[in-house]
């Protein structure tokens, strides 16, 4: 079996952001469910949090292709 160990690093770096993104959208969904009219305020916040959390996984992906 051939492959690149760096891609395992990507897998590891995706665990944290995966949990984090899940938590953010869980909070967003329950927030909207409690107060549907707050959707307009919550949406940019949720997307912003998602973007900041996702950064680690993106680092992992970039490094998986850098160290090959």
């Amino acid at each position, binding site marked *: 079996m051939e492959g690149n160990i760096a891609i395992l690093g990507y897998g590891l770096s995706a665990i944290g952001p995966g949990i984090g993104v899940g938590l953010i959208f869980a909070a967003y969904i329950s927030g909207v469910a409690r107060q549907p009219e707050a959707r307009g305020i919550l949406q*940019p916040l949720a*997307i*912003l949090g998602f*973007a*900041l959390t996702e*950064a680690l996984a*993106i*680092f992992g992906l*970039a490094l998986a292709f850098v160290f090959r």
Partner: protein
Amino acid sequence: MRVNVVAGETFVPPSGEDFWQPLVGDGAFALTRPMVLFLLSAVLIITVMLLATRRLSVVPGKGQWILESAYGFVRNGIARDMIGERNFKPFLPLLFSAFIVILVNNLFGIIPVLQYPTMSRIGFPMALALFVYLLYLYLGIKRRGLGGYFKGLVPQGLPPFIVPLLFVLEIITYFFTRPVTLALRLFGNMFAGHILLLLMALAGEYLLLHTGFPTNVFSIGPLVGFFLLTAFELLIEFLQAYIFVLLAAFYIADSLADEH
């Protein structure tokens, strides 16, 4: 093109090298496919904008309505919400043109024949992120002065032993993490999405044309996956254009804010 390379007996998975497509010349000064696409996007955007805004009317027509809703989305949904009612207007041209340029270039990734997201070459998002980086540094330093800017990185009223630690963390955030993630996020999403599409297309083609009877039935998996992922890419492309502009507005707002 790739399809010819794969014609052998073994399957060659796509890699980062598939994104290097020089059209004229080679090396650092080659004219590459994303460069041509970026020029095309510029010509396209300028033409559409000029044509659609030539005869503006109070009751908008179809073209004007589409442009106005895109503009309204960036103006009200991003700039005004993030930067604030008072001083968001000077940054609207930057935010709107960044949004449209990124969106059109991302959409090139799934438009047949073009099918290359320009932002999957790191140079393009790097240039965009560099502009935002220099802008928010300039705004922050202009507002508070060089010393005041660095002092403003750490919030007031903390216990003194934690201040140096926080200062180092904030320096890393402002001068390294923010610009790098801004560029890498756009690049990474476009690159990963496109390489996934490429993998589906190549795997489907390989299974269908280069294997015998029982296995070529399974080519339906990657080929259906290709269509589903194309629809998914459309969503990601909108989302990434939105996120880039949202974060740019957030960083600008952060530099303009009075307190940390």
